């Protein structure tokens, strides 16, 4: 279930209350998010849509602990991340969040395998265990046969699939996707969206996606609109799988 009115009393996976984000640009204060409330349960696929500058990416950054709000709180799986220190937040992020970016952001000098392995080198896993996890993740995205390729040797869609493998390899609590199909052709975009669908469906992953693309939004269970920093509940439907 996804709610934006702050009325949900239960323990949802993601719980946002009265979230405010302001930026100072010169003498002008920009109020990006205003008193935003949000509850998202595990296994949801939520799409955030809205015009440029509406605060979609800012919201995603705040949910992922990449940025701090001006006011309000965010609680994920019982942890209030808005009160965490920088160091604790880094550890939390590594454990709970998988990020997928529009431009993939793979490290070009590392192979697909090494890119996917990166989040795991921070853990106590042995080399053999890391290898097993990476191979599983790459198999899940259908790139087991490309693991020793460098990003420059892969297509855009394949690069994004490697990025997804990197995001899921540490089995995070939820995935944050910022325009994951924005740089892909239609066919590749559909592949990526199907993959995200599959992760939600088969592994109960919670997926939050920011997109301008209505076709991408169609894959979500819930589409929320951000306008001038305010979240408006859009369509909420049982998806056809």
């Amino acid at each position, binding site marked *: 279930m996804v709610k934006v009115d702050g009325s949900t009393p239960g323990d949802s996976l993601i719980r946002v209350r009265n979230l405010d984000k302001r930026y100072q640009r010169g003498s002008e204060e920009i109020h990006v998010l205003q008193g935003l409330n949000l509850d998202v349960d595990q296994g949801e696929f939520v799409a955030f849509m809205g015009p440029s500058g509406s605060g979609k990416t800012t919201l995603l950054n705040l949910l992922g602990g990449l940025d701090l709000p001006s006011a309000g709180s965010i609680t994920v799986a019982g942890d209030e991340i808005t009160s965490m220190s920088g160091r604790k937040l*880094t550890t939390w992020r590594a454990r709970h969040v998988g990020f997928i970016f529009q431009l993939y*952001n793979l490290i070009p000098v590392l192979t697909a395998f090494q890119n996917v392995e990166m989040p795991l*080198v921070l853990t106590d896993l042995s080399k053999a265990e890391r290898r097993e996890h990476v191979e599983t993740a790459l198999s899940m995205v259908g790139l087991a046969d490309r693991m020793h390729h460098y990003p420059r040797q892969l297509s855009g869609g394949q690069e994004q699939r490697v990025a997804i493998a990197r995001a899921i390899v540490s089995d995070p609590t939820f995935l944050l996707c910022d325009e994951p199909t924005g740089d892909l052709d239609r066919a590749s975009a559909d592949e990526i969206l199907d993959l995200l669908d599959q992760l939600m469906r088969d592994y109960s992953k919670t997926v939050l996606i920011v997109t301008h693309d209505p076709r991408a939004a169609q894959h979500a269970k819930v589409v929320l609109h951000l306008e001038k920093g305010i979240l408006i509940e859009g369509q909420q439907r049982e998806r056809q799988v």
Partner: protein
Amino acid sequence: MKFFPLLIANLFRKKVRTTLTLGSFSVALFLFCLLATIDASFNQGVEVAGVDRLVVLNRTSLIQPLPYSYQERLLQINGVKAVTFAIWFGGIYQNERNFFPQFAIDYTTYPQMYPEFAIPPEQWEAFIRDREGCVVGRGTFVKYGWKLGDRIPLRGTIFPGAWEFNIRAVYEGTRNEDDTTQFWFRYDYLDERRDLGKGTVGWYMVKVDHPDHAAQVAAAVDRLFSNSPFETKTETEKSFASDFIKQVGNIKLIMISIGGVVFFTLLLVTGSTISMSVRERTGEIAVLKTIGFSDIMVLCLVLGESLLLALVGGGTGLVLAKLFTLGGDPTGGFLPIFYLAPRKMAMGLVLALIIGLLCGILPALFAMRLKIVEALRRV
């Protein structure tokens, strides 16, 4: 070790740039070692000088002789344990470029004065038995491919004429820094054949019974021969060697100046290269932080790259310098001890690592303080 592939991959993303930076480190360290070797070579006499040995010279100048008769009188001074003497021969072997120091020595006392030079007893005996015999340092012996029994012709300059010597012994240094280029022959042979300055010697070496008595004995020697036709100037062997170097110039200052300029340039060049490399990777650093790399880890990664560059580049320079010095004196005799000591190599490596640290610290701090959101916006 888990981060090593990332370090290596980052370093070699721009192979030409990394190779040039490594080259800069190698050249700087090679130069440092070379300068250190030259400096050490100049100061070798000071470094290895015996603390219990005094040099007695003619007060007027080093090239003025002293009477042979002083030996007995020196032995009578309180605190003097042994006395020997030598004279500079200055002969030419084949041509002027084949320089090695030649001395006529008092074979009856010389080995006791210089226990650091090891000579097989049977070879020394053979030398004593042959009036035209000579003892050659291992360095010169090897350099010219001589064998025991070879007859070595020298053209006299101070003592004109053709001189010939039979190699009867080869001495070795007991320390790496010992000079093994010298050529000794018997003083009595020289004195018998020469027309000029018969009955004189070049300088005396005096061994005192205790290093603490050195100043006292030196004063006593000079007092003994004051107001004589051959007044003396006595100083410790270390002080003599040091004064001798000062006549050439302030070698250390020259070395430090050259080294300073080279390392400062290296600092600027490498610092700017690493800064450039980190700025190019702003987005990647943000991604690393996003997936859980802490600020400190990012700082360590950048510093690690910088230190690895310094270690590999500097290490290569050190190895090349060591190989170069193993080839021996490149000046043909001007720097008889051309030896790169392990201590100097360690010093060079530490210096390289300090430069690596200094080069990396600013880019590393930049990477550490990088705000993820701002960096991702720039991608």
